[in-house]
């Protein structure tokens, strides 16, 4: 039996109110002031995970920098798995988005003359990372949210949890959501839908992500027939706090922080990132400013060699900021100082901070074309949930916040335009589709199962970390995938103990677990099948090197009702940068010289 539900009509529906969702909603509202934009989020917008971003957002501003430099850094950082037309569009539009945010009031850190300041970031050749101290994501999110309040055609539905997309006749025309406060189900019908639901870092155990980062949107789109792409590429950030996983921004290293092993040695010079740069004189793309995948891998090796520092919360290396001095730390990295104090009891002005790699970012996501359009008509995706082809096999820090803005805007405009050209929805078929989905939801909530969701969640996160971490092995990955498949079978027997309706977080986390398990399977299968090493996907078995002949391709995954994802590949769009070896430090300099480039 299906329970009754209310229907809400809108022209454009934006799911997710983080950076990407808010930017989309504003763009849609501006593009067509007559359109009703429904902005749905499972948390209040300012709680969205974008709030956690610390370091900054990339956009070329300096006279001695160029869009071509940003392009090259992004493409080589992504180990040539980036779609180069997308990277071009991105670099051309990133800076104007930073300026747009400035006009909306974002408190960017400034130089003495009042122009916006930029800082160094890993893998970026020239300083181009705009920042607001070390709370960049917080300020971007609050600026966007507050700005969005002036558009009367944006209708917010805060704390509504979306469960399933409504697709009829090959067109996406709505979404089913639970109003968290009441437990009631609402069906949203619209002419164009934007997914901006963020990443899926919570599939892994030790991560820098907030509790809400559970890949719901990716899973929803996948189940509705959209394609997930490059899901095997999961980024480890080299510097999370042991225990909690709380992020210590790359901005620390941009400001001059150094990484030491237990012998006080700057070990990165042993991993193709040297020679050692003088303390207090960081150099772009050298040492601590190498890309994230390389730094995380170096940690792994140091740990094997016994060079890491054992702490009560696990092995770590030391991030030393002491030479920056208290004044600069408090000005540039105030939040880092407070996080270190609270979560590991350390004053970074006096002592180095213990750090270790933690899962941070999902490069893959819902496949879209350069206009953010997915496989399904009327369905668009932007932000971390999407795979537009920007990040390739490894995202560069500060490209993601910029991505939210650049492609969030595109998605909003595209959706508004699409909506204006659609006939009204066919309510009857949509509602009968919705009824079936609602019945499934109710059945899950009421079923008397034997499995506890929290237990399954812990097991999943541990299995993924073990088999799909910084380095991967064929047989370990197979075991990991088997475990995930068993957990998926057990999930069918899950029991939601809490039968109340109001703010039933047990039910919601059970749904989130369902999404995570779906994505874990896709990540595991994609990884197992990619028989090479590239960017964040590094194997230690027979496939230790990059194989452009076979795998200079995106992995595609389609849902199949039998529970086994359907694998396919597609070409990468290469316009002008042919794959070469990724080189950093002195080797990178050498490569540049040989090519006569800069």
């Amino acid at each position, binding site marked *: 039996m299906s329970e009754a539900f209310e229907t809400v009509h809108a022209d454009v529906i934006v799911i997710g109110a983080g950076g990407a969702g808010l930017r989309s909603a504003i763009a849609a509202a501006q593009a067509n002031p007559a359109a009703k934009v429904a902005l749905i989020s499972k*948390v209040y917008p*300012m709680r969205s995970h974008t709030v956690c971003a610390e370091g900054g957002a990339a956009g070329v501003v300096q006279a001695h920098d160029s869009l071509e430099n940003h392009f090259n850094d992004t493409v080589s950082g992504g180990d040539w798995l980036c779609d180069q037309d997308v990277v071009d569009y991105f670099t051309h539009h990133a800076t104007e988005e930073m300026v747009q945010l400035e006009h909306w*009031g974002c408190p*960017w850190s400034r130089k003495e003359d009042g122009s916006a300041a930029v800082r160094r970031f890993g893998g970026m050749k020239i300083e181009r990372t705009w920042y607001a101290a070390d709370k960049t994501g917080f300020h971007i999110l609050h600026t966007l949210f507050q700005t969005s309040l002036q558009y009367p055609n944006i209708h917010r539905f805060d704390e509504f949890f979306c469960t399933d997309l409504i697709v009829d006749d090959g067109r996406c025309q709505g979404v089913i959501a639970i109003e968290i406060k009441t437990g009631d189900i609402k069906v949203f019908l619209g002419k164009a839908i934007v997914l901006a639901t963020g990443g899926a870092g919570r599939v892994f155990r030790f991560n820098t992500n907030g509790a809400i980062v559970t890949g719901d949107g990716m899973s929803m789109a996948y189940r509705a027939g959209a394609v997930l792409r490059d899901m095997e590429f999961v980024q480890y950030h080299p510097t999370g706090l042991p225990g909690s996983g709380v992020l210590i921004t790359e901005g620390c290293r941009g400001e001059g922080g150094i990484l030491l092993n237990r012998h006080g040695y700057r070990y990165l010079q042993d991993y193709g990132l040297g020679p050692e740069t003088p303390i207090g004189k960081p150099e772009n793309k050298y040492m601590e400013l190498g890309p994230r995948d390389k730094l995380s891998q170096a940690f792994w090796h140091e740990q094997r060699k016994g060079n890491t520092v054992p702490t009560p919360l696990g092995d770590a290396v030391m991030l030393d900021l002491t030479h920056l001095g208290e004044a600069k730390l408090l000005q540039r990295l105030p939040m880092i100082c407070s996080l270190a104090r609270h979560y590991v009891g350390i004053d970074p002005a006096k002592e180095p901070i213990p750090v270790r790699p933690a899962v941070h970012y999902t490069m893959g996501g819902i496949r879209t074309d350069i206009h953010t359009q997915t496989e399904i008509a009327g369905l668009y995706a932007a932000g971390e949930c999407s795979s537009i082809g920007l990040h390739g096999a490894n995202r560069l820090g500060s490209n993601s916040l910029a991505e939210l803005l650049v492609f969030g805007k595109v998605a909003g405009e595209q959706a508004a335009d699409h909506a204006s050209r659609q006939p009204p929805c066919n309510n009857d078929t949509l509602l009968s589709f919705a009824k079936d989905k609602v019945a499934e939801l109710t059945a899950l909530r009421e079923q008397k199962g034997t499995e506890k969701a*929290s237990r399954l969640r812990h097991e999943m996160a541990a299995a993924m970390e073990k088999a799909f971490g910084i380095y991967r092995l064929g047989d370990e990955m197979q075991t990991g995938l088997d475990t995930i498949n068993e957990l998926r079978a057990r999930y069918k027997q899950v029991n939601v103990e809490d039968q109340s309706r109001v*703010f039933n977080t047990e039910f919601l986390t059970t749904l989130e677990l369902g999404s995570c398990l779906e994505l874990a399977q896709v990540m595991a299968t994609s990884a197992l099948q990619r028989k090479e090493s590239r960017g964040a996907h590094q194997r230690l078995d027979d496939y230790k090197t990059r194989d452009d002949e076979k795998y200079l391709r995106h992995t595609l995954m389609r849902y199949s009702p039998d529970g086994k994802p359907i694998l396919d590949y597609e070409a990468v769009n290469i316009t002008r940068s042919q794959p070469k070896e990724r080189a950093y430090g002195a080797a990178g300099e050498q490569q540049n010289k040989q090519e006569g480039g800069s």
Partner: protein
Amino acid sequence: MTIPATDNTSETAPSKSEAGITLEILRYIPGTHSEPTFQRFEIPYVEDWSMLDALGYIKDELDSSLSYRWSCRMAVCGSCGMMFDGVPKLACETFLRDYYPRPIRVEPLENFGIERDLVIDQEPFLEKLESVKPYIIDAMANAPSGKPGAPAGHERETIQAGENRQTPKELALFDQYSMCINCLLCYSACPQFGLNPAFLGPAAISLAHRYNQDNRDQGNADRAPALNEEDGVWSCTFVGYCSEVCPKSVDPASAIQQEKVRGATDWALSWLLPKGAR
């Protein structure tokens, strides 16, 4: 034994001991409970655990029906405000070790309606936030651009012109007030808000002040009505507890005092100047 808390508990379980600690948590599920009551939970004492880790342990291992909001677990999303022994704090930034071995009383933020357990009703705050027009109001952008409410065309031109200049000094005039994470601890601390739920309150006024102080903004007059009406700044009797509990050193009390001064000056000027010049 390993002790699972959040998914991030490290594999080498944090310095655990056989010791335990008691949490007394206010429980209320509408439709199930007729009124809020305290429930006791005995949990292992782990020195590194935040209150959020402790609640996570209870939810995963002891009672899955316990509800509370959280996400970032790094004191920036503003979700996890609650009362610990009567003091409003962020659960993710409050640690068991600061209470051990005493039992800890956990309640939802004071002065708000309870939706369930530790979850409070934030809707009225969102309305207050909106009422102070917390966005850049720019005289230029509001000039008739031919497009009602959507200065998109105008924006395109100004974006080309690049960013506004704002010196570090000008930024410092409002920077602190832009740090508010909307955690609502200050509302829980405010006796005036307790008495008068219509009071605009510390965070909303701080945000209005943040924009009023921004050299790019020209919206002081637009925000004045909300700030100067009866339930605006004048409801504040300067208790100052809001600033004490604020986890982000926003100092809402000082924002309120400064807006009172601005309001008083505006009011005085309104008598001196002919109407159109206000």
